[in-house]
């Protein structure tokens, strides 16, 4: 089955996920890399124009060899020294990793880059694109041979909760033990649904909006029942704001600014 996430289960039973990069994002990164290669070739040409003064024959020979090395070596060199990234991949937050989560090895990088010769057939990576589209892990032929995948690490952006929840008294916070239980019992998907409903509240027509927030409030209330003094007189939409507030608001000192992989 085709999926955008690869889950790896360690022998200890821990599951971690890797978001797979799709063909369009990868094409974007490839396009940027092609531009970088063109820039490098232009720089090489300019540098060799000085050598032309001494010997035109040598300048041309160096250009031919340089063109070959830059064309083939660009991906290998960058992916090796930047641990699976090229300039294009860095911009698109993509990274080549081993399909089983192991350390990426030099020979894997070489194989995936050499097999571009087949992936780019007949033009614009048609073969690679089709393989990527058909493969459950979005691997082109080079990735298949090298046992690699391309993952994306999107920046985890926090919703603008201040704008959404500003200036409101949260009656649920009076009951920290129930708040703790709520955070424990609500799944990430449920929390996201509540958040998305609030963020997109103005897109609903009035009747649907009332119905939706009524259903969601009932759902969350059924999970953890707060005492009447926390919920009486609180509209369903406000109740949901309070729920999102206690689920998503964390103290600033608990933020981990640094990400594991730069």
């Amino acid at each position, binding site marked *: 089955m085709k999926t955008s996430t690869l889950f790896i289960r360690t022998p200890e039973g821990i599951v971690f996920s890797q978001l797979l990069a799709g063909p369009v994002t990868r094409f974007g990164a490839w396009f940027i890399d092609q531009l970088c290669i063109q820039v490098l070739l232009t720089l090489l040409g300019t540098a060799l124009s000085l050598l032309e003064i001494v010997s035109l024959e040598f300048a041309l020979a160096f250009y031919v060899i340089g063109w070959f090395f830059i064309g083939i070596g660009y991906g290998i060199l960058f992916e090796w020294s930047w641990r699976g990234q090229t300039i294009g991949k860095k911009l698109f937050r993509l990274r080549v990793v081993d399909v089983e989560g*192991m350390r990426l090895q030099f020979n894997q990088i070489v194989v995936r880059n050499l097999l571009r010769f*087949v992936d780019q057939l007949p033009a614009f990576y048609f073969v690679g694109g089709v393989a990527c589209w058909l493969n459950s892990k979005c691997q082109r032929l080079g990735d298949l041979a090298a046992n690699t995948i391309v993952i994306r690490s999107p920046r985890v952006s926090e919703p603008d909760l201040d704008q959404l929840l500003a200036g409101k008294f949260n009656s649920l916070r009076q009951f920290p033990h129930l708040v703790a239980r709520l955070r*424990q019992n609500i799944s990430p998907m449920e929390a996201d649904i509540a958040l998305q409903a609030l963020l997109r509240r103005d897109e609903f027509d009035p009747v649907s909006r009332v119905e939706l927030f009524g259903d969601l409030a009932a759902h969350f209330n059924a999970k953890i029942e707060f005492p009447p003094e926390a919920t009486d007189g609180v509209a369903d939409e406000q109740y949901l704001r309070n729920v999102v507030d206690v689920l998503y608001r964390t103290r600033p000192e608990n933020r*981990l600014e640094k990400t594991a*992989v730069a």
Partner: protein
Amino acid sequence: VIVDLQRFIANERPFWNELEKLLDRLEAEPNARMSLEQLQLFHQLYERTAAGLAKITTFSSEPEIRHYLENLVARAYGEIHETREKQRRFFPLEWFFQTLPQTFRRHVRAFYLSLAVTIAGCAFGGLAIAFDPDAKPVLMPFSHLLQDPAKRVAEEEKATHDRLQGVKTTFSAELMTHNTKVAIFTLALGMTWGFGTILMLFYNGVILGAVAVDYIRAGETKFLLGWLMPHGVIEIPAILIAGQAGLMLALAIIGRGRRRSLRTRLREISQDIVTLIFGVACLLVWAGFVEAFLSQYHEPIIPYAAKIAFGCVELVLLSLYLARSGTRKKLETGGPAE
């Protein structure tokens, strides 16, 4: 179960930071060795962080922390569960005189297959020209090969000026890069279950056979040997080795008679394929030099006998290198017999 998330994060963060520092060090210095105590600490930190991830995954929010921990666990997992041999520092001479010929011999059956396909192509091309000389324009890809051999030899031997004057180095560079690209393409086509590689090898054989028979029929055998041997005895084996690598890839994909998974089969040959293709590139650099600086000069400038002798010496040295280089070292270290 985490009762107080804030306290849990505050308690665990020093361990996560320590693991992150260890991982940074490991990744920055791949050859560094850890002591037993460091290894124990590393494993302990990994297990603790993994357990933290398992706990935090049940939480509805904290996507940042979950993401951070997933990254940490993924990196540590790669280091701890890696069973492949750690990459050693690269020693060019050891690689050239031991690793490359040993790798070639380990997969010599794929080379024989590559050779057999090329010979079949040669036979086809040769017979096609012998029985139907009019097929020449179809079989020969380059215009200069379409010329009558006797006429070409006469022109070459009468030439008074060096037609490669001022472009020899460029010509040599073009030959090297073009042939290396052909070799990589031959290897990469192994992904087509080997059909592409076999087609490339067969087609190369067809051209070679057709050219050879064309010149032999015209009575220009000496010229042919003098022209092709100096660079051909290196260039042709190089393409055969590229075909060998392509066929290894194909055999790993097909996996007939092997109970291991596709992923394992590909992992097993990945390093060897890279070794072979870098070896091919080295051979083609030499062949490019020889073709531009020697092969294109004929009698009376260079006697054919000298060129043929040069080719023979190269062939013997290459055969000895591929068959014998690195064998003594293997016996001394008690490695498996080849």
